Structure formats: structure tokens, C-alpha cells
């Protein structure tokens, strides 16, 4: 037993408080590592290029990666339950092209946007039902979702459809400026998704049940928590995020394209893991995933600054991912030994 169990809570010194904090929040450490790497990348790039940490560049970081951030929020929910969702890239492509096609046939944005979100959520619902009620492995169920989404995207159109709708374009073209910094409505949507995701995860019974399921599904069930509903819901949330990302990406590129987001699901999984979420479930943070997106985006920007091949992004992200998985293993092993 640790001293903490026996000692009465007295006034704590700083050292003790740090001790209490790390004791309580050992699972935050990977996220701190991600923050450290982000700072390292930003400072390193600034020193190397001299013109990296500009407001323009940093604002673009959010703008360019808004859709990834939204997907990462949904993926965090799924991965914390120890599941996986491979469908997000193609769900995003499908909702994007579907929305673009609706808009081009004259359906107003106020109808199109909810339809996009709902169709994403429906694919998520399908995956969730397969996982929960038909006991299909999340990998397989969401692989089915991946093919379904991609197939539907091609059914809607084989080529890209331009979007002329002012509402959707407004999401992208509006720049809310503060000095040299700016933010677009898509960026606000992404940050909003993160904020809502974080509050739901930490402050609601549903969110805590998500962690409980990831910790031990059996225990969560025996504790009387609503496990089936929660497991279905996380895939619905991921699908909904897929739909929202479809909207944001369509606004960003000004068109729907059925080949969008091929391989994006893997980027998103990597981002979530780099942000400190354990693939085995039970631990992770939506805010960490946001940091993961920034790490990913910064690497991408650095590479384009260097004028190198974008494939280097994947190589570096791959290496980082390896590093993080090793770090997480070490942390998990340490905390298990502590028990």
C-alpha cells in the first residue's frame, strides 16, 4: 500500500502535489509527450526556417486539418472502448459527394447538411449494431462500413462534383480575423467538436461508460452500466463525425470527390494514438487527439516547407507512431506493476 492510503490528507507541498497528480493521472503522460513533441517540432521548424511560426502558417494548420480533427474526435470515442473504426475515410467521401450531388441538383443547404450528418451516423449505426448485436469484430464490421461508404460514393458519382452553394462555401471562405490570425467556420466547427467531445467524455455518464467499457466490458456490464447502448453509440458518433468531416472537406476543397479520404482512417488512427489514446482501450483524451492532429499537420507543413516528397509525412508519422506505442507499453507496464 502506498503512503497515500494511510496518511491523512494534510497540507501538501509542491513535490507531494506533483506526486499526487502523477499518481492520479499516469495516463496523461503520453499526451504530455505528444505536447512536448509538438513544441519541439514547432520550435525546431522555426529555428530552421525562420518563418515558420507565423500567424498565417499557424492559422492554416487548423484550417487544413479541420476535417482530420473532427474525425479524430469520433475515433477517440471508438478507440477508448477498445474498438476501431476503419470506415471514417470513406464515410467522409460518401457524405461529401452525396452532399455535393444534392446541392448541385438544387436541394438547399439547410436540408443537405442534416442529410449528410444523418447518413454518416447511419453507417456508424450499422457498424455499431454489427459489433454489438451480431458480435462482429470491430475491425471487420468497420471494414464492411469502409467498403459500403466507398461503394456508395461511387454510386453517387464517379467524378468530382463542384459545389456552388453559398452557405457551404461560406464555411470555408469566411475569415474571422484577429490581427494576422484568422479562423474559418470550419475551424470553429473542428474546435467545437473537440470541446463537445471532451466534455461528453469527461463530464457525462455516457462518457465515463465509454472509458468503463474500454477498461473491462464485463465489469462495466456487471456494474450495471448500459454497455450495449454505449458501444453502439460510439460508432454512431464516429459516423456522425465522418459526416461532419465530409461537410468540412467539401467546403474546404469546394467539391465532392468519391476518391477523397482513401487511407485517411489510418492517418486518423495514428493521430489518435500519438495523442495518447491506448489502442487497447480505457485510456485516452479527446484533447490529446487534437494535439495529435497538430503534430501530424505540423510534420506535413514542415515537409512542404522543405519541398520534399509528401510521402515523408507518412514515414515520419509511422516512426512517431512506433515510438509512441513503445512509450505507452512502458507506461502501461509500469502502472500494472504498481498494482
Amino acid at each position, binding site marked *: *500500500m*502506498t503512503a*497515500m*492510503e*494511510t496518511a*491523512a*490528507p494534510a497540507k501538501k507541498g509542491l513535490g507531494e502535489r506533483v506526486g*499526487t497528480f502523477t*499518481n*492520479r493521472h*499516469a*495516463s496523461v503522460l503520453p499526451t504530455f509527450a505528444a505536447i512536448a513533441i509538438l513544441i519541439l517540432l514547432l520550435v525546431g521548424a522555426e529555428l530552421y526556417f525562420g518563418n515558420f511560426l507565423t500567424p498565417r502558417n499557424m492559422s492554416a494548420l487548423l484550417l487544413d486539418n479541420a476535417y482530420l480533427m473532427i474525425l479524430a474526435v469520433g475515433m477517440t470515442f471508438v478507440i477508448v472502448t477498445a474498438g476501431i473504426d476503419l470506415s471514417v475515410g470513406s464515410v467522409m467521401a460518401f457524405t461529401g459527394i452525396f452532399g455535393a450531388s444534392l446541392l448541385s441538383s438544387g436541394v438547399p443547404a439547410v436540408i443537405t447538411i442534416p442529410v449528410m450528418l444523418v447518413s454518416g451516423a447511419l453507417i456508424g449505426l450499422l457498424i455499431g449494431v454489427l459489433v454489438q448485436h451480431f458480435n462482429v469484430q470491430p475491425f471487420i464490421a468497420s471494414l464492411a462500413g469502409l467498403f459500403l461508404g466507398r461503394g456508395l460514393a461511387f454510386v453517387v458519382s464517379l467524378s468530382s462534383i463542384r459545389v456552388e452553394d453559398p452557405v457551404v462555401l461560406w464555411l470555408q471562405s469566411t475569415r474571422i480575423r484577429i490581427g494576422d490570425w484568422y479562423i474559418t467556420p470550419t475551424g470553429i466547427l473542428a474546435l467545437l467538436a473537440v470541446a463537445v467531445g471532451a*466534455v461528453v467524455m*469527461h*463530464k*457525462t*455518464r455516457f462518457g*465515463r*461508460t465509454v*472509458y*468503463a467499457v*474500454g*477498461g*473491462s466490458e*464485463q*465489469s*462495466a*456490464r*456487471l*456494474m*450495471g*452500466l*448500459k454497455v450495449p447502448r454505449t458501444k453502439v453509440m460510439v460508432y454512431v458518433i464516429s459516423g456522425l463525425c465522418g459526416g461532419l468531416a465530409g461537410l468540412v472537406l467539401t467546403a474546404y476543397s469546394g467539391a465532392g470527390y468519391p476518391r477523397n479520404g482513401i487511407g485517411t482512417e489510418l492517418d486518423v488512427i495514428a493521430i489518435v494514438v500519438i495523442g495518447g489514446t491506448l489502442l487497447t482501450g*480505457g*485510456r485516452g483524451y479527446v484533447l490529446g487527439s487534437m494535439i495529435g492532429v497538430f503534430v501530424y499537420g505540423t510534420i506535413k507543413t514542415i515537409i512542404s516547407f522543405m519541398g520534399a516528397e509528401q510521402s515523408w509525412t507518412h514515414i515520419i508519422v509511422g516512426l512517431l507512431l512506433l515510438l509512441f506505442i513503445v512509450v505507452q507499453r512502458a507506461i502501461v507496464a509500469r*502502472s*500494472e506493476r*504498481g*498494482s
Partner: protein
Amino acid sequence: MDEARPLVELTGTTVRFGATVALDHVDFRMFPGEVHSLMGENGAGKSTLIKALTGALTPDAGTLILDGEARAFHGPHDAQEAGISTVYQEIDLLPNLSIAENILLGREPRRLGMIDGRAMRERARVILHDLGLDLDPAAPLGTHSLAVQQLVAIARAISRDLKVLVLDEPTSSLDLDEVAELFRVIRDLKERGVAILFVSHFLDQVYEICDRITVLRDGALVGEYLTTELLRIDLVQKMLGREASFFKARERVEEAIGSEVAFLSARDLSSGAGIVGANVDVAEGEVLGLAGLLGSGRTELARALTGVDRPDAGIIRIEGEAHALDTPRQALSLGVVYSSENRRSEGLVGDMSIAENIALALQAQRGALRPLSATKVRELATSWVEALDIRPADVDVPVRNLSGGNQQKVMLARLLAISPRFIVLDEPTRGIDVGAKVEIQNLVGEMADNGLSVVFISAELEEVLRVGDRVAILRDGHIVETVASADVDVDSLMALVARPDLPEA
């Protein structure tokens, strides 16, 4: 007490799994403020009855009356709402969440739809305090010992309006102090009028804490007795349904052995902090018992001897020749095998059949290129099922559906199938009933008679003494003494195990 109305009463409870009847018209009742024990061999229907009581399964027939009201539970949630809570043997809490959340999750205090973290921690602290525990409610549960986790599980149970508390094998992984702490809590709850179902295979504990005993056998009710009116020997007879045929005495290897005749001899074996400078000699056909308290290094020694953990220092000689046993595979090739105390996580593959589980090790030894044919596997399994009397005798049944004792036998069969020469059994009788325990003990004797060297680990000193020819006593990672079983009895062995090192003046 009989005149009082039972707090909970199950009548005519019947549960079928396919063709087998797990519970056959069983009546069961509990009074407020009593500690009740449910006794029976493995497979007698204890866990099924508990599940019927706690809503984990819905009986095919029968009624449940709680506090004078007929109830039907559709899941643990319903039962918990009604005031029936369970603390399971394998503690079913969430190590990744905080203690406060583990206690209150599902009915945490909320403000504006959001969980109120501060209020939740405060409430958890009060509940823990009520149990005499001073823990940091915000600390993750996983950082605490099993005993603490168990008390947290009880805290969760009492945090709501609790009428019936079911404790399923609560003491199997606790040491003596922790058991005393648990009993203090149980007595406290009893005072408050909670009915407690205490299921344990430790007869001593049952007699110490329980007021009343219900005995089940083969899914049927044998009877309900007051603890004070039921002799232990009668209890065992009722559980087994036969004259207690007990342990066949076997001839012991009496002479002390030096390293020249030892089959396996370890010198100065150290592994992490768990075991330091251990010397072990085991002769062919000898059973060496390992006795020690939890955390004394029993398992660490076992793992170091069998290559599961790579020892930090020391030499292991097998038939006089030094060998490096750094991996289980190397150990296996020398005929040295280890049977883990964690049947479920480190032993059996629950979803695979008895036959597949038995054939696993042999197949691994042969390598993937020389697969055992399906017929061969079945033949092998059938012969072992017969030899060890594994029930059910159907080799296609998934192992997960077997009782603890039978699972243990399957594990033994798997190891014996590769004809080992040295076997370490780590708590092979933990969590299994008296009858199966005796069978396992007899098996160990037979194995030794056939020339196998056995290291037998158990938390029960009596058992170690009965099975072992010699007993090595572990304390704080050191082998403090090795004695011939004939020279000690349970009391003197207990003294050896418990004797604290003299405090420095």
C-alpha cells in the same frame, strides 16, 4: 430467527443450459442481518444460484421474493436497483478509472446533466470512511492492491440502499490481515441488517463468520443448517454425498537429498526482488512443497525455476548438468514445466475445446510442420479425460464452461501429455472444492510415484504438508528453511511461515 420473515427467498429455482439441468427446483432464503454460506462442490450449482439471485441470468422456473415482493430481474442492473449487490471473485471493477468512479459510476452526482467531480469524490470519501478506509478517491483503482480493490467493490455495493450483499470467493486472494479487515466490514454490515451471502471454500472462514449454511449438490438442494449445529465432517459429507474418502497416504521419500542425487538443483537463484539466493533440490519422484504467505516469493521462485522469468543470478543443474532455463521453451525441452496459478489468463484457452487445450503443448513441442491429426488429438484427450476423470467427459466442450477443478485437470493433462520430468504446480487447488482438491492431491502423489519431480505450491499449509515429502518455507523472498513433512505439523509449519525476522534492537 426462523420466525422472522426472510429478506430474500428463492423458491423452485430451475436453470437449464441446453440439456443439462444446472439447478433443479432449489429453494434458498436469507434473513436480514445474517451471514449465510452457500456450500457445494464445483458444479453443484453455487454460481448458477448466485447468478439467479443477482440477475445475471434469468431462471427457467421459480420465484424470487425480496422483502415480501415477487421480483423478476432482467440483468444485474435490476437486481442492484432492488438492493442486491455482488462482489465477484475476480474483482469486476475498472482499474483505469478512479476509486470514486468505481464506487459511484452509474449513479454519480450530477449538476446540470454533468458529472459533479468534486461532489462525487466527497461522497466516495464518506462511503470509504464509513468502511474505515482512508483512500484517495481520485486515485486510479489499478494502482491499489487486490485487497483494497475488493473493499472498494464492497464500498460500491453499500453506496446504495443495500439489502443483500453477495461475496463470491472474496478471500481467495487475500492474506490473513486482509481477511480480518474484510470480516470486520462484514460484521459491521451485518449489524446494519444486511443479509450477506458469503461463498468460500475455506471451511475455517465459513465457520468463523457464517450463521447459516445452505448446501447444494449436483444442482439440487441438500439442506439448510445452522453453522453451530453442523459439524465440519458432516458438512463435507453433505457436499460430497459420500463418505469422505480422502487422501491416499503414499510412501514418502524420507531420506534427505543432496545435490548429487537431485534431478533438479538450483543454487543462489535470484529473480528480481521476488526471490533472492534460493537453493532448491528436488529428487526424482519427490514432491517438494512450497509454503509461504502471499508475496513471500512462491510464484516468483516457481517462475524462475521453469524459465518463465529469466533468473538474474544462480545456476540450475538438471541431472548434474548446468542449463540455462531462460525461456519456457528451453525449459520445456528439458522436461521442466510450469502450471500457472492463473488458470484463466495464463493457462487455458477458454474458447477452445478440452481436446484442443490438452493437445496444445504437445503440438507446440512437435512444431507446426508435424500436426497431430484430429483423431489423434481426440484419442489423446479422451485417454486423459478418462485418466484424470475430467467432467464432462465430452472432449468437445469449450474449457470455459468447465468448473475450476476440471479446468485445473485439463491443464495438468496438457502438461502431462508432453511427458515432463519436473513439474511446478502453482496453487493448483485454488478456488476449487474439497472433492476436486483431494483428487488433484492424489494425482500429484501418483505423478511422483511415476518418477516425476513435483514442486507443489499452495496457500493452504495443511495441503502442502499432506502432499509434499519435504516443505521449503519462504519468507520475504528467501527460503528460510526446508523441512521433512514428517517432522512438522500444521501448527509448527505455520509458526515457521509466520515468524517475523527478529526486529533489530
